[in-house]
């Protein structure tokens, strides 16, 4: 029999349905792989061995009795640690949440469990999803499985590293400004951020509510589509979730591999100065490949791109400063042991409980919302947001997808970014605009640099344009094998 750990999530599901393996075997093989590799990678904050095996047993019975028959029934999945799991520690990789165990599941967790997926553990991340390297975690940095001196990207670094290292078949991450796509790119896996509102945010501990979306990280586009089929759709617990017209249609079924007549736009600003040559050429080669398959490729301009970073950091930090105010040491999580009065309880708890990057962003967000500055910063950012949306709209009148690098360079060395946070913020330049405009965006592996680190290409679509975005990525993966390369093997041979 093939090595279970090398299968995609869909292949695992198939093998379980055919009776070749059981959910318990798949789960147990994965748990062993985590045990073997994670002391080095540090992708997980919490591993739920007992609960996962218990759940796998239950699910296996339901599969055998025919009650569960979905493509991912019985397949283990790992969850970013900012998504609430009932009774299981959910920390946002922050000291301030302590051992917080939510008394409720996020809607996505309920949906995964109803589909028969087995949650094996909670994944490392940048504290409160603030960061692009997974170095700001209270639980220590996650390593990039392709080169353990490199960062895995962030903030869903645990998710991308786990999938790349064979410590997860698939995972759920969250993406506020690139937090799924950028680590997927750095770790050579596939990550998808859906249209805002497609997936319920209920139970996702908010960083920036108007930008946050939950999405899948997996080995290929098919797995991402299959996970999307489970988690997507209107949720009465989230007022910003939307009714999908193709609600009952399956993203997985929609993948055709046919990109003939697909109108692809390449923004010239994303291939110019500041972008590594190897990244540029790999992404351009991808466009060539799609062209060979019948796509029409045209160069366009995204004149607003220089405004996206300030716009994003104003909006995101403003919302974060409010969202993170509830962590005050009063009701749950960490509370400073020494304080004098109420004000001091807040100050001591928040000073000791939050890490540096989080504090920096809370300060920035508090500043931009302050009386006298609101109009100059926050209000202006909202105005730029609507301009960005309009410009995307007009581009998507003529094109089906935009293709560009996910990040300007491959994964940096651990420690490099923390010393220069502005450089780290600028590395988000290609990923933040889909969040600002609420658009779907996918990152797929499209090559390696000369030191063997993965390169990712980003495919952006119009609002609710999931079909073309996933379709283009799928077509590309049909004719390339970058997504099949194995980090563990490469790491060993190095």
């Amino acid at each position: 029999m093939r090595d279970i750990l090398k299968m995609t999530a869909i292949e695992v599901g198939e093998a379980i349905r055919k009776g070749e393996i059981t959910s318990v075997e798949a789960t147990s093989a994965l748990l062993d792989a985590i045990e073997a590799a994670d002391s080095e990678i540090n992708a997980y904050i919490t591993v739920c061995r007992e609960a996962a095996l218990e759940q796998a047993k239950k699910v296996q019975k339901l599969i055998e009795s025919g009650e569960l028959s979905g493509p991912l029934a019985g397949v283990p999945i790992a969850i970013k640690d900012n998504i609430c799991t009932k009774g299981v520690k959910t920390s946002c990789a922050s000291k301030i949440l302590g051992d917080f165990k939510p008394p409720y599941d996020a809607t996505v967790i309920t949906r995964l469990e109803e589909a028969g997926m087995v949650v094996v553990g909670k994944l490392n991340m940048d504290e409160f999803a603030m960061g692009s390297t997974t170095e700001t975690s209270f639980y220590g940095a996650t390593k990039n499985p392709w080169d353990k001196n490199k960062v895995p990207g962030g903030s869903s670094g645990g998710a991308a590293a786990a999938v790349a290292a064979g410590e997860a078949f698939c995972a759920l991450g969250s993406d506020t400004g690139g937090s799924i796509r950028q680590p997927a790119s750095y770790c050579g896996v596939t990550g998808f951020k859906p249209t805002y509102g497609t997936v319920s945010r209920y139970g996702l501990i908010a960083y920036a509510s108007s930008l946050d979306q939950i999405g899948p990280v997996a080995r290929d586009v098919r797995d991402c589509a299959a996970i999307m089929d489970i988690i997507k759709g209107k949720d009465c617990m989230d007022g910003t979730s939307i009714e999908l017209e193709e609600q009952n249609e399956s993203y997985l079924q929609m993948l055709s591999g046919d990109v003939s007549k697909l109108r692809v736009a390449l923004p010239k600003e994303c291939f110019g100065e500041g972008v590594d040559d190897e990244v540029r050429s790999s992404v351009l080669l991808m466009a060539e490949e799609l062209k060979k398959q019948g796509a029409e490729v045209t160069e366009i301009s995204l004149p607003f791109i220089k405004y996206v970073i300030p716009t994003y950091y104003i909006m995101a930090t403003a919302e974060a400063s409010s969202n993170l105010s509830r962590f005050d040491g009063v009701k749950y999580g960490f509370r400073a042991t020494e304080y004098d009065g109420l004000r001091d309880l807040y100050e001591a708890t928040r000073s000791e409980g939050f890490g540096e990057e989080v504090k920096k962003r809370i300060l920035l967000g508090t500043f931009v919302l302050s009386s006298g500055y609101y109009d100059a910063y926050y209000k202006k950012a909202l105005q730029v947001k609507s301009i960005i949306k309009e410009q995307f709209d007009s581009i998507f009148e003529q094109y089906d997808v935009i293709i560009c690098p996910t990040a300007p360079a491959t994964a940096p060395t651990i420690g490099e970014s923390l010393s220069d946070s502005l450089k780290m913020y600028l590395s988000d330049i290609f990923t933040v605009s889909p969040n600002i405009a609420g658009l779907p965006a996918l990152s797929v592996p499209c090559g390696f640099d000369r030191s063997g680190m993965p390169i990712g290409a980003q495919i952006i679509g119009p609002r609710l344009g999931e079909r073309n975005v996933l379709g283009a990525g799928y077509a590309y993966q049909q004719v390339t094998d970058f997504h099949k390369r194995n980090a563990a093997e490469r790491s060993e041979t190095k």
Partner: protein
Amino acid sequence: MTWETVMGLEVHVELATKSKIFCSCTTEFGGEANTHCCPICTGMPGTLPVLNEKVLEFALKAGIALNCDITRYNKFDRKNYFYPDLPKAYQISQLYFPFAKNGKVEITTKSGEKKTIGIHEIHMEEDAGKLIHSPFGDATYADYNRCGVPLIEIVSEPDFRGSDEVIAYLEQVKSTLEYLGVSDCKMQEGSMRADVNLSVRPVGSKEFGTRTEMKNINSFKAIEHAIEFETKRQIELLESGGRVVQQTRRWDDNKSKSYAMRSKENAQDYRYFPEPDIPPISVSEERLAALKAEQPELAGPKKLRYIEQFGLSDYHASIITLNKNIARIFEQTAELCGEPKEVCNWIIGNAMYLINERSMELGDVSLSPRVFAEFIKAITSGKINKSVGKTLFEVIFDSDDSFDIDKYIADNQLAVIDDDGAIYEVVQAIISANPQSVEQYKEGKTKVMAFFVGQCMRQLKGKANPDKVNKIIVEELAKQ
């Protein structure tokens, strides 16, 4: 110098929806601490607010009835501040796009003139929890039952010039919201609270003086006192050469004094910004039209109808119609017994007395129209007289719908004594026992008649017809 007081009101009203504004927890008053809350209203990480449609409906009804322009797209905003009774550390409220604007309420001033008070805006928001400070040691406990209870805040224009106008406005607003059924407006339970913004200026001046805001006022009486106190304080300050500092003051009703809480310099920066978790709310023309069509008869039109239909005076009709419950009791009783004026008199003379004496809310009066109608019939048919009626009214005021008034009258021998023989007997006994008074009567001092009637009625336990008693006394005295 003569001074003029200028006031504006911020009135918080709790909406009477069954569940909270952003979750399905009950809004019921009381309950053991932290039993009426859930992860959403206690702001647990990852939870999200979803607007209760009923809250919007109630708010819109209030906005329409208070003659506001309803905003076609309204939005929520976050008001950020740290306090342990606010578990998210922000209150979801409406700053930039409140649901209603530019309303008006017509009141009658002390001098009987009509005056229009402008409403600047009305917005929806959530209530906070309650902190309970331990009487022992320095512990403070938080009760989140009130968190997320829906409120509307009605912000008036600075149109008030006297406390009578403030009270008239509050009564009008309360009446309207009660008729709509959108709030029970109980000040004692905190479901209606008012903050008063007050400044003074020389009469004739066009400029506003520096204002203070008084919070924590929870009865009409307290509002009157607070206004009186603050007006006096500001005038004394200005006349002694001082200046008013813009500040928030807390009214302590027990001490009849207000205390400075915080001044403008220390005012919090609430860092308002649009609430990203709740999409903008659009209100369609059709919806507005439907809500308007559903609007029940409010106090104003009802008053006119009562004057027309039941022949009540303007003054009586205003008292009877101010409260929905009282108007209902009046109208049902009047229809059952056919004696509207009598019903009105008993309500105004007796029911109101009991309500005031017991500090009851008008809405809590549970007098049964069926029992009340039978009571009126017993009075008008002469079965019982008015003095017995007064006592009996108190009994029916506290009884329920199953009360059997005839049985009660019989059991307690309250019926008027029809047997003339019995009255003669009593009258004769009283006359022979008081020869001195008889003499006085003969000398023309007719005042002693009152003495005889009083004595006889006491003997008869008030159950005889006083006119009849009077007639028999005159008759018997003439025989002396």
